[in-house]
């Protein structure tokens, strides 16, 4: 294949476990190679490493005396293909909301240590979202449930099978009367097929969907358009009008949408540039990246929709727009009309059906090529969660199987599921955690993580990926496929691989096709077919704006509905706009804040936010009030996902549970009142400073003539150091960065960056090597927002190096600002002198007593830093060195693109480019030559190797 492994040593792209499976010795291989993985949670790390037989660099930096000899433990039988320290890349996928996120899993000694995007996959093109990156940590989550539990006490699968056989027999007899499945969203063709078979076998069985991210009742999109899967094609869009649709925000389509958006940003001709009009009820990433944004109360959104519809001759005229709204509607509608074919009107997933209907009609009228409607990809349920509750209350449910669903936590507040569930004779919960729902179920069954199990799934464009395990299951789990199969047979159900293989039997008849699909990471030709939609005409009812405060309910920007709550990487990842970690806040506008006598959040010295209480329908939540620039007045936004009780040590008991404000009827909005309550909350934010800066750090250049005067290298009195044939450098295009944070999580995963917890972050000690600076311009009520990823600049004349008394940070001939942990004595002079403050310090020992399973994730090519040493972005030196060694071994040059830094590889918009500046042909050198190129704080004469491309200012409308 074209690309090489990032570290240059993996000669085996697309290598799949199947090849090993071919040989008889596969079984012994697994036994010899991974036994400790079964034990991992219990055995100590030494034991684990021994059996791994791999020399992992897990210990921290130690003193002068070299460690005494360790034990070397070879195999009894060396598994074929095993090579000490070899790095393999298996094509597979992880799931976001049931949709496949195609990845290449980097594994060392049988442990996946990093997920990269699959460059061959049409939907992602090698990029990943922060959710995909963080999915790896879920695999190693020490709080995963590890054995079946019967009423909370450890049971045996045998016990369950015995039960299941009795139930199965009975149900097959009565056609499955009263048996219900409550299942989280899934796109697995195998699973969907199994469910069909199940329903054939048990005609009376019904399947309900539980998805707190879309709502609890009927899906508005289906209502308006029938069962279809909308798919944005932003690469075809010239003008996009979004009514509260955060399509650049976290979610299964984030990578694809961001990729398409980026194709019309940066160096495209001004006429081809995407124009984004956003009307939103609360600030989102999409709004932050929109040129024309207004914040409106949620009750106004239908009105705006109607108004736009009117302009395009659909739906009746709308009256009562404010001047601002009127202006926005006019320019938005004008832009739509002016770009027929390349125009797009999109509405939020949570909007009522009539808006979806309207949007579809508008797009059809505009012959928009920027959106496709595909045949449904995800499971289409028989009924909704509300239907289920109704049936339970009417006593029709005898047995409820909940697969990945957690209604006890994520259900609406006006349904007390715990109480409801008591009316069901048999409740079975299958999930990755022993969560709130498991706690009230008769049976809890642990299910495997996608990385340790056979299954399949489809990405948002419908392309199917066969998900193969890249590690022996860590715990005694059982896949959903096997569980479902158990309904239909008396024999011990077949294992997941057999079921999946059987499902693909006709399409991938021969082993070659099967192996090819596994190696490629997806099944060619499975993209979803276009569906014809005829939007049901639905009147848009515009309610008069309710009195009091309107409450907007949104998934948390990082842990979303709460499923990610036990993931340290997600918890410590700053929310893109607020930069808050480990917590959810209640966002209110500056004006509203003033009316409650609350000062602007997060000015230094006030990481403490006043508490505020949101009340709706007699239910209240109390949380830190966050003054959010761009938030509409009299609107309070609360975020779901926190206040969990049953997810694990990381996620339990932090933040407040905003589900308390959610009603089954209106899961996304509510009306109520705000009440300032006494007390301050400590909010750990990584950017304490929120003043409106203007483009000092991120300058604007006019679209017409995109050049920036800023010199990269000032004059210096020092002779320039050796210009080798390798000069590593990075160029970041601020016009492409959407602030999604994928780079941060990718860096954290690649470089063993520790999670330090809320208190440390609050103290200003977060360890992320790369931060995404968030800058506001203009007025607080509707500011312009920009993002700027700031890694180490690798200055050619680095102030930090000058300050170090022991040569612990020095410069390499190829232009890296090296950090030698084991030489560092921790004077911290380097960080004091660093104008960019990109260095991080190990204030305590953050690494030694991590759980063994966390240590198993660590990258053996990166030193795990001990207490008292400085660390910082290394440009992923382990990848550079690995590639250089590989190149030197066969005496060749390093090709441009061979080396990708972790952040670059993850970035969905290619905002980050890394390469050899000495090679004029390299992508990095070309970018650096761009007239938009500028050095951050270049006037200090540090000659940074990391430079930026200025942001392009919105040109006048090209009507």
């Amino acid at each position: 294949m074209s690309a090489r492994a990032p570290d240059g040593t993996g000669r085996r792209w697309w290598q799949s476990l199947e090849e090993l499976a071919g040989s008889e010795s596969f079984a012994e291989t697994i036994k010899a190679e991974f036994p400790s993985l079964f034990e991992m949670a219990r055995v100590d790390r030494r034991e684990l490493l021994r059996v791994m037989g791999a020399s992992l660099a897990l210990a921290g930096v130690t003193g002068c005396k070299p460690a005494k000899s360790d034990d070397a433990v070879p195999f009894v039988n060396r598994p074929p293909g095993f090579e000490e320290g070899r790095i393999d890349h298996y094509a597979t996928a992880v799931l976001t909301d049931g949709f496949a996120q195609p990845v290449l899993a980097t594994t060392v000694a049988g442990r996946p240590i990093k997920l990269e995007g699959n460059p061959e996959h049409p939907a992602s093109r090698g990029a990943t979202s922060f959710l995909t990156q963080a999915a790896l940590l879920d695999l190693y989550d020490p709080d995963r449930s590890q054995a079946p539990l019967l009423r909370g006490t450890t049971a045996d699968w045998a016990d369950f099978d015995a039960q299941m056989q009795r139930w199965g027999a009975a149900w097959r007899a009565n056609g499955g009367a009263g048996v219900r499945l409550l299942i989280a969203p899934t796109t697995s063709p195998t699973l969907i097929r199994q469910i069909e078979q199940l329903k054939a076998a048990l005609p009376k069985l019904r399947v309900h969907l539980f998805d707190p991210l879309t709502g609890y009742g009927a899906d508005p999109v289906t209502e308006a358009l029938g069962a279809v899967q909308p798919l944005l094609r932003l690469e075809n869009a010239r003008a996009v009008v979004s009514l509260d649709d955060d399509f650049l925000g976290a979610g299964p389509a984030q990578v694809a949408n961001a990729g398409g958006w980026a194709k019309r940003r940066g160096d495209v001709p001004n006429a081809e540039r995407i124009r984004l009009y956003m009307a939103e009820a609360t600030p989102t990433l999409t709004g932050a990246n929109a040129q024309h944004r207004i914040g409106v109360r949620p009750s106004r959104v239908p009105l705006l929709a109607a108004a736009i519809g009117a302009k395009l001759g659909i739906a009746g005229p709308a009256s009562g727009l404010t001047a601002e709204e009127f202006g926005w509607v006019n320019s938005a509608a004008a832009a739509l009309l002016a770009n027929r074919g390349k125009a797009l009107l999109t509405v939020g997933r949570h909007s009522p059906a009539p808006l979806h209907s309207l949007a579809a009609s508008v797009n059809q009228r505009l012959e928009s090529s920027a959106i496709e409607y595909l045949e449904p990809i995800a499971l289409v349920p028989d009924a909704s969660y509300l239907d289920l509750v109704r049936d339970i209350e009417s006593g029709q449910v005898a047995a409820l199987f909940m697969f990945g669903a957690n209604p006890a936590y994520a259900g609406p507040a006006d349904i007390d599921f715990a109480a409801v569930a008591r009316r069901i004779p048999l409740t079975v919960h299958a999930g990755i955690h022993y969560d709130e729902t498991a706690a009230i179920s008769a049976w809890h069954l642990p299910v495997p993580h996608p990385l340790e199990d056979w299954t399949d799934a489809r990405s948002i464009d419908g392309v199917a990926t066969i998900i193969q395990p890249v590690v022996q299951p860590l715990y005694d789990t059982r896949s959903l496929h096997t569980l479902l199969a158990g309904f239909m047979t008396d024999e011990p159900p077949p294992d997941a691989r057999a079921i999946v293989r059987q499902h693909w039997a006709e399409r991938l008849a021969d082993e070659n096709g099967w192996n090819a699909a596994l190696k490629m990471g997806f099944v060619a030709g499975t993209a979803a077919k276009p569906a014809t939609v005829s939007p049901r005409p639905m009147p848009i009812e515009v309610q008069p704006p309710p009195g009091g405060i309107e409450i907007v309910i949104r998934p948390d920007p990082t842990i979303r509905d709460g499923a990610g709550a036990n993931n340290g990487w997600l918890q410590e990842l700053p929310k893109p706009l607020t930069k808050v970690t480990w917590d959810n806040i209640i966002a209110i506008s500056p004006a509203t804040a003033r009316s409650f006598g609350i000062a602007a959040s997060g000015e230094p010295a006030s990481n403490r936010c006043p508490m505020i209480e949101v009340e709706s329908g007699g239910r209240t939540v109390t949380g830190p009030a966050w003054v959010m620039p761009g938030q509409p007045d009299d609107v309070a936004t609360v975020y779901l996902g926190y206040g969990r009780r049953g997810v694990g040590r990381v996620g339990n008991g932090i933040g407040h549970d905003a589900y308390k404000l959610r009603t089954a009827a209106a899961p996304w909005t509510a009306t109520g009142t705000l009440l300032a309550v006494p007390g301050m909350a400590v909010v750990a934010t990584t950017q304490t400073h929120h003043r409106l800066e203007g483009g000092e750090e991120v300058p604007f250049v006019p679209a017409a003539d995109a050049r920036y005067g800023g010199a990269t290298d000032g004059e210096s009195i020092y002779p320039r150091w050796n210009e080798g044939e390798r000069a590593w450098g990075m160029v970041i295009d601020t016009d492409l960065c959407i602030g999604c944070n994928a780079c941060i999580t990718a860096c954290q995963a690649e470089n063993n960056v520790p999670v330090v917890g809320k208190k440390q972050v609050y103290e200003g000690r977060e360890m992320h090597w790369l931060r995404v600076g968030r800058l506001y311009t203009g007025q607080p009520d509707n500011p312009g927002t920009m993002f700027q990823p700031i890694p180490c600049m690798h200055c050619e004349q680095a102030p930090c190096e000058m300050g170090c008394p022991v040569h612990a940070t020095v410069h390499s001939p190829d232009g890296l600002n090296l950090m030698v942990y084991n030489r560092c004595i921790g004077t911290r002079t380097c960080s004091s002198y660093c104008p960019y403050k990109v260095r991080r310090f190990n204030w305590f020992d953050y690494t030694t007593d991590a759980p063994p399973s966390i240590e198993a994730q660590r990258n053996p090519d990166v030193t795990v830093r001990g207490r008292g040493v400085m660390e910082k972005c290394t440009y992923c030196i382990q990848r550079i060195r690995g590639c250089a060694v590989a190149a030197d071994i066969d005496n060749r040059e390093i090709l441009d693109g061979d080396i990708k830094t972790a952040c670059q590889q993850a970035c969905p918009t290619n905002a980050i480019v890394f390469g050899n500046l000495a090679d004029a042909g390299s992508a990095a050198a070309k970018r650096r030559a761009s007239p938009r190129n500028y050095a951050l704080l270049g006037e200090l004469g540090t000659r940074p190797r990391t430079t930026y491309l200025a942001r392009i200012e919105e040109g006048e409308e090209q009507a």
Partner: protein
Amino acid sequence: MVERALPLDETLHEISVDVGRVPLRFPARVPWAIAMVLSLMLVGLFLVSITYLFARGVGVWGLNIPVNWAFAIHLYVWWLGLGHAGTLISAMLLLMGQDWRNSLNRFAEAMTLCAVVCAGIEPIIHLGRPWFFYWMFPYPATMGVWPQFRSPLEWDIWAVLTYLTVSLVFWYIGLVPDLATVRDRARRRGWRVFFGIFSLGWRGSALHWDRWRRCYRTVAVIAVPLVVSVHSEVSLLFASGQIPGWHSTIFPPYFVLGAAFSGFAMVAMIAIVMRHTFQLGDLVTERHLDVLAKVLLASGLMTAYGYVFEVWDGLYSGNVHEIATIHDRFFGIYAWSFWGAVFFNFVPLQALWLRSVRRNTVLLFLIATSVVVGMWMERYMILTTSLYKDFLPSSFGIYHASFWDWSTYIGMIGVFFTPFLLFVRYIPSISIFEDKEVLAREHEESGNG
């Protein structure tokens, strides 16, 4: 007519007695014992603090990124500053032939020693891995790596070591003849052996006196530029960085003056206390205090000039970041440290224009105290206000001193006073023979005149 440093009715013998009795027949046992117990308790606190510090890591302090230097470093500067007065008084005034110094220099130097020891400890305990501090010295290691001599931190290590050694020997050779005096006054054998050994058998031979003088003056001549260089290097530890508020050429003189200023204040405080506790009123006369106060006033005004110029320098630079920092010092969240420094270092000081105040020990003591506090705030201000907001808003962060910051600092005060108390207890704390010299000269003058 010039006022005398010492009263004429004093005789040479009385000087020996006045001073000599302090070690031999200690006059103020009770207050001393109390002071000693207190300061030993502080030492205990210090030991507890650094034990916890070494066990857990520097994270026990309130440090973070960006403010990764705070108490340890600003106290290092502060202690060192206090120390400088001793050397300046004994060396510079000696060269300028200022007789009045002779009653002050001995304990001023002792104070210097104690302060420099504290200053030396601070940077070492602030290391992330203090057990590797020796990597800063050039020794042939099996690692084959050497220290990095471009680093201001490397400079400081050598500066402080040199300064400590020089202060020590300067103090000691000045002490030898007096130890001999006490040796000869002592009755108990233990004392005679003790002082006998440390006086190295000094006999006061004319030949020895001749060499001693040359030597003492040579060291004095060298000590003055040393003081200036040491604190200049301390200032370079900041000025070498590009951080706004640090990156300024005014820093070296600014720091040296501030150091002398705080030092003189410290000397004044100690002089007043000792004068009262040990009834040394005849030796540390009002005139001494008066002159000291004048010096304090002078150096204070220079420091004030430094403030003005620093602000002017920043504004004149036209650099947005410099100006932002200055604005921040005036109005930011650490403004208290700036205005505190301005107030305590400048306002009470002005009272010293009045002779009556200069001679009022209580007032002088209070003013000196305010100066020491003021300089403490200034050093704190220089560190935090520059670090917590430097260039990029995305990196701004705040610092709050933790409990362990304070406990380490307060404990360090004990580390300062314990050796000093031992000194006043067991060693002639005023230069006997130099006072005799002065007295003899005055007798002559009065005889002739």
